[in-house]
């Protein structure tokens, strides 16, 4: 059996698509796991998107805790005899999957960008060395656990004729010794850098939060309207929300045009945008690494260049 779990619905739908392909090849069933309250509408949706079965683990756990979710999934895997487990690679999934793998004494590959059978073995591809290479690996034992980032696979079209069972089961899990004191939702503007065609990004070369207006203005003119940033802008300074963060530990993007202003071009940033169509860099340091990863660049002060560039683009585009 192939088992799919994420607390993110979109990601679950994407994994169900890949999961049903793998399940077909194996001649096995595809099960989606829902943890928490029974949600009939959600279960129906998973079935319409390929699940043969939805396993609802009813618990009174209020918030995600890797320790408790691990125990739940461990029980579900044992009960269902699942041999292939796909877990969504959001931050919760990334800390859940390896813990689960350790409890089951098994292999786990994180952030797979491809997944297929080769010589009857589940084979994974993932990006390593900050974007310099792809590692191809194979599982040699079961259960086999892979985590899948969002947007790697497209969900199957909805098929209301597809049928499946919903199984509900109550679980008591041992409470973790850790306690969640506070959960603070970061404000989101619904920015989606992954789908953007044009991205203008800012880095530490910006002196104040308000100066981000300079990239906003250019993005607006370019009709991309999408602003990206380097890790320090989102993680240290918190000038922009996480959804703008591009790189190894942030979002992976591939717009037609990527403009990096005041970004040094460390490999961890490049890892997130190296698949872009045309890359443009603006940096005052002629030796900045970013120029090595750029198609076009201007050496100079972004405070002088960006307004001029915005005007020039406006004129050109008429």
């Amino acid at each position, binding site marked *: 059996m192939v088992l799919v779990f994420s607390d993110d619905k979109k990601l679950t739908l994407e994994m169900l698509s890949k999961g049903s392909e793998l399940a077909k090849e194996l001649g096995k069933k595809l099960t989606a796991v829902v943890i928490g309250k029974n949600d009939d509408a959600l279960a129906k949706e998973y079935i319409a998107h390929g699940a043969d079965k939805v396993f609802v683990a009813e618990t009174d756990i209020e918030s995600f805790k890797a320790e408790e979710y691990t125990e739940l999934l461990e029980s579900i895997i044992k009960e269902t005899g699942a041999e292939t487990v796909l877990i969504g690679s959001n*931050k919760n999934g990334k*800390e859940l999957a390896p813990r689960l793998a350790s409890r089951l*004494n098994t292999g786990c590959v994180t952030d797979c960008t491809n997944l297929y059978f080769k010589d009857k073995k589940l084979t994974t591809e993932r990006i390593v060395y900050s974007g310099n290479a792809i590692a191809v690996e194979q599982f040699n034992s079961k259960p086999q656990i892979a985590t899948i980032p969002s947007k790697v696979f497209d969900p199957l079209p909805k098929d209301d004729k597809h049928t499946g069972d919903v199984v509900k089961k109550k679980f008591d899990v041992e409470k973790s010794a850790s306690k969640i004191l506070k959960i*603070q939702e970061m404000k989101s503007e619904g920015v989606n850098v992954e789908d953007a065609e044009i991205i203008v990004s800012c880095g530490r070369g910006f002196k104040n939060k308000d100066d981000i207006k300079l990239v906003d203005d250019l993005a607006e003119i370019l009709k991309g309207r999408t602003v990206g940033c380097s890790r320090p802008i989102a993680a240290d300074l918190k000038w922009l929300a996480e959804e703008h963060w591009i790189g190894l530990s942030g979002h992976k993007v591939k717009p037609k045009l990527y403009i990096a202003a005041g970004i040094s071009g460390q490999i961890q940033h490049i890892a997130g945008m190296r698949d872009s169509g045309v890359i443009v860099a603006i940096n005052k340091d002629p030796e900045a690494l970013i120029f090595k990863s750029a198609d076009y660049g201007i050496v100079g002060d972004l405070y002088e260049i960006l307004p001029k560039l915005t005007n020039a683009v406006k004129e050109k585009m008429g």
Partner: protein
Amino acid sequence: MNIIVCAKQVVDVSEMKVDSSTKKPILQGVPQKISDIDKNAMEEAIKIKDKHGGKITVLTVGPADAKERIKELLAMGADEGILIPYPDKYDYHVVSTLLTEAIKKIGEYDIILCGEASIDLFSGQIGPRLAGLLGIPQITYAQSVNAEKDKITADRNMGDKSVTTESTYPVLITVTKEINEPRLPSLMQILGAANKPINDWTVESLADGLNPKIDAVELNGIPMERKNIIYKDNVDESVKNLVDSLAKEGVLR
């Protein structure tokens, strides 16, 4: 407070190249270093020790030359290092089992610190695996921690939310780059580190019959070739040239 810092020696990915004819990444001759975030883990360990006293042990599964890297962490403030060699074949299952057995052998521990992920493979597996094998709570992606006498609190960067978690000891914590600024050891500290012990523990003394669950099949380089046309003279000229080029590329529509 007994603190264990798990630190990994990695290739400096920023110095890596891909062979343009074979399309394979070149790993030979690339400088080695401590995985960046492990230095943040080390720094945090020192801060906790400064507050509560205790001992910091650095634990590494790595090649013999990783001793040089462990010395850097001893110079920063660790008390002792332990080096376990890589077995012939290894994966995350093997490495985490070795680290876990070593931690059990050390015996007394309150806090285990790891990086959020290693800079070469960026998996984030070891931390949660150790916590799972030891059956202790895990606090991942800690962006700030406050260690008190019998509990620890951390603010965790979970992407679209920030989660504050508290735990009793023992606990495993993975830290992010933002948690602190790792100190640079002084010359005196670097010299002093020479007298601190680094113990060699064998694989056999920790576990036998260890086999990887994942086999490496191949490693393919991803070359990146860019035009590298850089305008650097007059700003107005440069801007004009850039806009003309972008128009030609067809990205201004």
